């Protein structure tokens, strides 16, 4: 049974098809890649899987359990974290507070206690250390550079210890040093058992990082396989270069 699976997903915006018969699997413990030309439906797929868009048809399953149409909140609580292509952080909160937002608490009484318990503080500190932002913890997050915001968003998603993380262009618009750093962090987490699905245009990044790659074109998956297989697949080349 796959950890996360999308089966025959369909989504259209008016007359424009976003997804049609889109199937993708993410196996436990892997770093899966998802590539495709601009507008091929990668972000739409993420939005449907994480509950930001409602699917017109098909199913999303987590460990075999159908979660189609669940709210973003429920999806996150089920253990699916995601980052956004255009990084979304809480710019008026401090770096540290940003991480705390994602640290989950259950129960009404606990919500009324102070926002940072000692345990949570230690956890947030560890996460910020992990992404190299610990020295900026008390700055407003809006003051960070673009790359630092990406790292902060990453740390925030990690806070709730998701089983699988969907990364939407983690390396987009980030300098090469940071890309290497990010790839290293992703590998470290993966060794600790976190599964990833990565959308990325940076081919070098995807080919090195991912064990299996799916290729999307016009809302559907046209190829899937090892990086070397995908690279030489004629259908993929055609999708990227056109007829």
């Amino acid at each position: 049974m796959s950890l996360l699976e999308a089966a025959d997903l369909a989504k259209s915006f008016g007359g424009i098809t976003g997804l049609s018969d889109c199937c993708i699997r993410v196996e436990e413990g892997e770093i899966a890649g998802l590539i495709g030309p601009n507008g091929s439906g990668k972000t739409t797929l993420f939005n449907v899987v994480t509950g930001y868009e409602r699917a017109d048809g098909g199913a999303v399953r987590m460990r075999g359990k159908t979660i189609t149409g669940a709210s973003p909140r429920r999806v996150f609580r089920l253990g699916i974290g995601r980052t956004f292509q255009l990084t979304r952080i809480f710019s008026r909160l401090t770096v540290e507070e940003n991480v705390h937002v994602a640290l989950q608490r259950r129960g009404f009484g606990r919500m009324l206690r102070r926002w940072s318990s000692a345990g949570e503080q230690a956890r947030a500190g560890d996460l910020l250390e992990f992404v190299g932002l610990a020295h900026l913890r008390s700055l407003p997050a809006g003051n960070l550079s673009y790359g630092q915001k990406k790292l902060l968003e990453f740390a925030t998603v990690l806070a709730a210890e998701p089983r699988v993380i969907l990364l939407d262009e983690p390396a987009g618009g980030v300098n090469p040093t940071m890309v290497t750093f990010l790839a290293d962090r992703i590998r470290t987490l993966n060794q600790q058992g976190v599964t990833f699905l990565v959308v990325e245009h940076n081919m070098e990044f995807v080919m090195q990082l991912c064990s299996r790659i799916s290729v999307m074109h016009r809302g559907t998956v046209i190829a899937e396989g090892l990086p070397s297989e995908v690279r030489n697949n004629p259908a993929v080349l055609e999708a990227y270069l056109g007829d």
Partner: protein
Amino acid sequence: MRIAARLAGLAVLLAIAVVVPQVINSPLSMTMAVFTLLFAIMATGWNVLGGYTGYISLGHAAFFGIGAYALTLLGQHVQVSSGYEPFFLLPVVGLIGAASAVPLGIITLRTRRHVFVVLTIAMLFIGQLLATNLRDLTNGSTGLSAPAAPWMGSAFNPPFYYAALIVLVVAVAVSWWIRQSKFGLGLRALRDDEDRALGLGINAGLAKLVCFVVAAFFIAIAGGIYAYFQTYIYPQVVFDPLADLAMVLMAFTGGVGTVSGPVLGALLIEPAHEYFAFTYGGNGLYLILYGTLFLVVILLLPQGVIPTISYWLALYRQRRQTGAAGQIGGQVTPAAATQRERAGEQPIEQPPPGSRAANQ
């Protein structure tokens, strides 16, 4: 140490507030003081919604009207003697306001930003229309008499003053509690990016509704005190667009989203308002002054007095520590600098609180 200093400061402020009626003899000044406290309650309540979640309601004065009518009608239908007893009805009045806020909140909070603002404005005027037209209940535009307070002369104001003071202390305590809680952190997160907060497990819908209702609760209580204080209410006065704007203006002036800001805003604006209304009431000049003040605050102090002052303080401390006027915000340790260099990042400068970057 800082907490002890703050608590001491609070105790001093509270002591001054308690002593005020013993010192001020003029009934006019005492009436001003009561109104100031009522507005402080309203602004503090409003801030729980508008400040913490960023949902700017321009109609929460509707609950002031609901509270005023609730106390008046309760006074007519429930047997209360007219001394201190109506004050004990205030929690019930608050609950009536809160209960009426639940359906209104569910409806209006389906929208965001400008649409929400417009819907809440409608809320105020619908309240006014209902109060005017439900004659059997409200006696229409003729109005209703609330229980008449038995106190005479200079003894008249202090009971209202202390009742309002107690409610204000509770309101500020609730506001502070929310601000520092995990719940409050979620609110401030959804103020910045609601969809992102949803995707991080925040129950934004419920959180917003709770704030909407808490705000209504305190504003309704202020309305209740007002009704008993004035002994006579009618729709145009208790569903008052000016009071509605005043409460928002006070929160913005003092510092929207801070705990003490709305109280400070009320302390600054309401006495001035009363003074100008009393002196130039006839020609409506005070209304123009009000508008001007609103403009000045939005243009020059968009964050309000408290955040601006605390920013200056932070700036001052920073300069004194580093001994130079460079680097603002985040001391740059050597380790941090190298890490930043390694990542190829630009140094970080903290923009002033009013600038666009800080508001994004």
